């Protein structure tokens, strides 16, 4: 059973999992990062308070986040079909993955940016900095370690979601685990896929922690 075809298949599916995870994370950041920034600046004590924008974003984020991923996956099938042309396979999975992850990322970004010392923002305002400069050069730069930590968490979560997408023909390691391990009772293959998923998360976590540590200048020495 452990022939080269099997190993090749596992390697290919690992690649697909990584592809889904990375592309979804990037796309989710494209949506989630601006959302997180907007949440921070439109909040009541933010740079440009705007109750309407804040409330809408807040509700959207909460609603999407409270829908279980599997259900969202199915709810989004028509939309996915519209965007990708089909509703199964790795590329199609990217659509619901991105949609599910974006609000989660918005919250991660929001909490990272809120960690930035109010006083530093005030100092920038006292120097005549505009909102754009403050967001870019103060909030994002000062929160960068926290943002990287958040991105690592996001990657791990999205990797987990991508495995879940295997249940509905999403491709990747989750798909393998369900098809071979669950439907065919091949426990050893299930174990191998789980081990691969664990290794992937560990590697991502290790890289994320290293980068964030390297970037953090708040620690002396």
């Amino acid at each position, binding site marked *: 059973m452990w022939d080269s075809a099997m190993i090749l298949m596992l390697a290919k599916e690992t690649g697909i999992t990584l592809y889904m995870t990375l592309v979804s994370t990037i796309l989710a950041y494209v949506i989630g990062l601006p959302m997180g920034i907007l949440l921070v600046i439109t909040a009541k004590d933010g740079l440009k308070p705007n109750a309407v924008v804040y409330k809408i974003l807040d509700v959207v984020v909460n609603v999407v986040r409270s829908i279980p991923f599997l259900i969202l996956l199915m709810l989004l099938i028509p939309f996915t079909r519209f965007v990708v042309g089909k509703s199964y396979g790795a590329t199609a999975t990217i659509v619901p993955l991105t949609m599910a992850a974006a609000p989660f990322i918005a919250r991660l970004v929001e909490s990272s940016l809120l960690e930035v010392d109010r006083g530093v923002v*005030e*100092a920038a305002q*006292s120097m*005549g900095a505009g909102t754009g400069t403050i967001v870019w*050069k103060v909030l994002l730069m000062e929160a960068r370690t926290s943002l990287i930590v958040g991105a690592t968490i996001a990657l791990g979560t999205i990797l987990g979601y991508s495995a879940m997408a295997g249940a509905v023909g999403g491709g990747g390691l989750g798909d393998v685990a369900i098809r071979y391990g669950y439907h065919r009772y091949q426990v050893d293959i299930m174990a191998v896929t789980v081990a691969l998923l664990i290794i992937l998360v560990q590697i991502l976590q290790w890289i994320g922690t290293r980068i964030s540590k390297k*970037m953090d200048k708040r620690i002396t020495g």
Partner: protein
Amino acid sequence: METMIQVKDVSKTFVGKENTVEALKGINLEIHRGEIYGIIGMSGAGKSTLVRCLNFLEKPTEGTVIVEGKDLSSLPDKELRLMRTQIAMIFQHFNLLMQRTVLDNICFPLEIVGKKKKEAREKAKELLEIVGLSEKAGAYPAQLSGGQKQRVAIARALATNPKILLCDEATSALDPTTTKSILALLKDINVRYGITIVIITHEMAVVQEICTHVAIIDGGSLAETGTVEEVFARPRSAAAKRLVFQNGGNYEEMKGKHCIRIVFKENSSFEPVIANMVLECKTPVNILLADTKDIGGVAHGQMVLQLPEDKITAGKMITYLKDRRLEVEELDNYVG
């Protein structure tokens, strides 16, 4: 002298969920070019709100602030930001960018005004030299002591050649020795560049050390303004008296014992005034308090004496002291 900052009927009310707080009530102030103006008050008096009104980080609920003839409330956002590059500010907790080096921190305000990177770095290096931290250019704020961080903040504040420097409790997080060195640096900057400095503090010692003028703020209102010498020698309001006596024994205990307070200036220290007075009146007095304060580099002594019960002798003593050009204040006026 040319008016630099004019505060006109400024009131600020914070509306909360349960209560509204009147942080400032009808404040009027005038600060002239080149002055080191102290705004002093107990915590919660509204002084931090007041200083934030000077650059419109807080917009007054009523009234306005005029800086160099420009009414800040009339300026559109863009012009207000341009104005702020001329009104620098330093803070109690320094508020440096923790992820930037010292040099890049000083470059930050120059980036905001769109200076070229190379020019900005040149200027930043110059400023680091002025504050005496050239060797720390590549360090990060986390590697600096409190005093060094405040020096970096001062260099950063000076980067855009501001006309005004606002200091919000800038020495409150520092030890006494570091406080002295930071105040000396501020004074040097004031003399060297003619920058008008506004200092917010709760410590009388800071005002005495470098300020030329002082405003005392109490419960959101202005209690008293004047030159530091005036206010120290003749505090009129209760708030001013509290501050002058801040570290001078228990004022309450001296009430009602027929006490007087005398203030000596440098020229009165040649004559043993009290001893001569006792000899002259042939009645002893009780010295309850005596200390010296350094106000703007000039030694000022103050003393609280308990005079004899006998009204005639006491009156004679007061006349004697007044004849020697000493400031005499009868404290028992304030009983009850």
